[in-house]
């Protein structure tokens, strides 16, 4: 029997099948052109308002957690672009409870293709492209206006850190979705880590306190997504006392997160018993 995981995608012809799935999705979503345009515009709004929120907060105060608006925008940019792109690529996996309830997951599992890529491609929300593009815009404006002292290493980091953020957020989406293999009615529980993570990484972690910061920043690893890379880009020492090289650790942390997500997915799929309807 085929391994119901990520391995199957190396099969000959699998790529063509995935391409067909994606093409069908793209055509069906673009079929109602007005709806699609409304969706594109509407979706950008969510990310716009995240950034507006940061701007409003800086309208009340000059510094947030010891960071000026220009410095904080670098953090916001990495977080917004990373989250929006991950949400575009794998965010719809949060609908896993629905796939389980409607029996779609059963249909997907019996096909000779990887279950996760199938689910992602069958439901790829192209309308969220606008969000990712806006996130990229914020990131570009932030790093160009922050007056960075450019070195070759920083140039590399400004490319790698957002990519690592995408991988990290994507892993968080997949890992939290696997909870619904065990608890179908977990509802919005996953949101607390996915959207909660987005909110957490939008601000310098110095604003948070106590065990809450410890859990989110270093327990789950959100500090490595935007805060530490931004410190490295800005050339600032960590007020919380971690060494400077931590800023460059984000790709490694992202890979660990991806490995955890893959393992959680495999264990989850193995554990899965159909709802039986």
């Amino acid at each position, binding site marked *: 029997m085929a391994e119901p995981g990520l391995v199957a995608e190396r099969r000959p012809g699998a790529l063509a099948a995935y391409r067909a799935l994606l093409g069908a999705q793209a055509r069906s979503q673009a079929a*109602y052109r007005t709806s699609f345009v*409304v969706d594109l515009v509407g979706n950008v709004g969510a990310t716009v*308002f995240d950034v507006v929120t940061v701007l*409003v907060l800086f309208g009340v*105060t000059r510094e947030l957690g010891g960071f000026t608006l220009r410095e904080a925008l670098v953090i916001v940019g990495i977080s917004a672009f990373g989250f929006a792109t991950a949400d575009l690529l794998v965010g719809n996996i949060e609908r896993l409870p629905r796939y389980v309830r409607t029996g779609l997951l059963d249909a997907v599992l019996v096909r000779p293709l990887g279950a996760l890529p199938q689910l992602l491609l069958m439901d790829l929300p192209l309308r969220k492209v606008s969000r990712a593009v806006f996130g990229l815009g914020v990131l570009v404006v932030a790093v160009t206006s922050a007056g960075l002292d450019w070195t070759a290493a920083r140039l590399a980091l400004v490319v790698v850190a957002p990519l690592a953020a995408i991988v990290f957020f994507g892993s968080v989406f997949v890992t939290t979705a696997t909870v619904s293999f065990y608890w179908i009615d977990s509802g*919005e529980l996953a949101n607390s880590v996915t959207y909660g993570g987005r909110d957490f990484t939008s601000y310098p972690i110095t604003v*948070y*306190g106590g065990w809450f910061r410890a859990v989110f920043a270093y327990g789950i690893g959100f500090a490595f997504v935007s805060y530490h890379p931004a410190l490295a880009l800005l050339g600032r020492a960590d007020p919380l006392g971690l060494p400077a090289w931590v800023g460059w650790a984000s790709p490694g942390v992202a890979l660990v997160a991806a490995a955890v997500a893959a393992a959680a997915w495999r264990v989850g799929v193995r554990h899965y018993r159909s709802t039986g309807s």
Partner: protein
Amino acid sequence: MGSVTATVVPPTDSNVIRSFRTFRAIAASGFRRYATYRQAAVAGVVTNTVFGFLRCYVFLAVTDAAGTAGGYDRGQLATIVWAGQGLLAVILLWGWTDLADRIRTGEIASDLLRPVHPVTSYLATDLGRAGYASISRLLPPVLIGPLFFDVYLPRRWATLPLFVLSVVIAVVLCFGCRYLVNATAYWLQDVRGAMILWTLSSGTLAGLYFPLRFLPEGLQVALWAATPFPSLFQTPLDVLVERDPAPVQLGLVGLQLTWAVLILTACRLVQGRAERRLVVQGG
């Protein structure tokens, strides 16, 4: 209907009482229906709690050396965040598509056959739902917040009843807004566009992402007077933390009431128009 007889109760009165009983029965069934989703309530409370921590830390970081921001002190901000996380599920800003779904599938036809006006019966169900949510979703964050943060407790005796009144009006108003958004399905079939607009504008303009008092004063006045959004969420919270003196509090609740009446009237008008042009889907 044993206790209501023509000899004891005048006919006009009996109508009022009877429709009140119907309303109460529908509300009670709404309460029971939502009380069955217990696991979802637990998951929701966990999520509200996490967001409570996130927002609370960020808003507290905004306060100046004197510990104030936007006219709130630190305790008031903490109360706003934690009561707000609970209130979110009571007014149910997002995620209600019952009416739109029934219009799309044609099931709305059976609602129209009932002797109770659809706006009234859906409102009754929603009040029942809100009643359950105020126990299962409002209480937990309100109790959890003070364990970790110094919160502000109301000092005037009149504040608590006024807060309760303000929340009830907010529920009715929020229901009316959701009803209008859902009712676009009579014309559009697919309400996704309207729903996205509602989700975006309500989250920001109601004061969920940041207290509206952080905005410039002119903008605040415009928002409160020209849109129903602040009355959905920010007003009950401002009443609770006594942001303003008592007369202003009363004024804000009065404004809320005005919006609720306006929006509910709009619901009935829209429903009437829709019924005249409705072609039930699916035969």
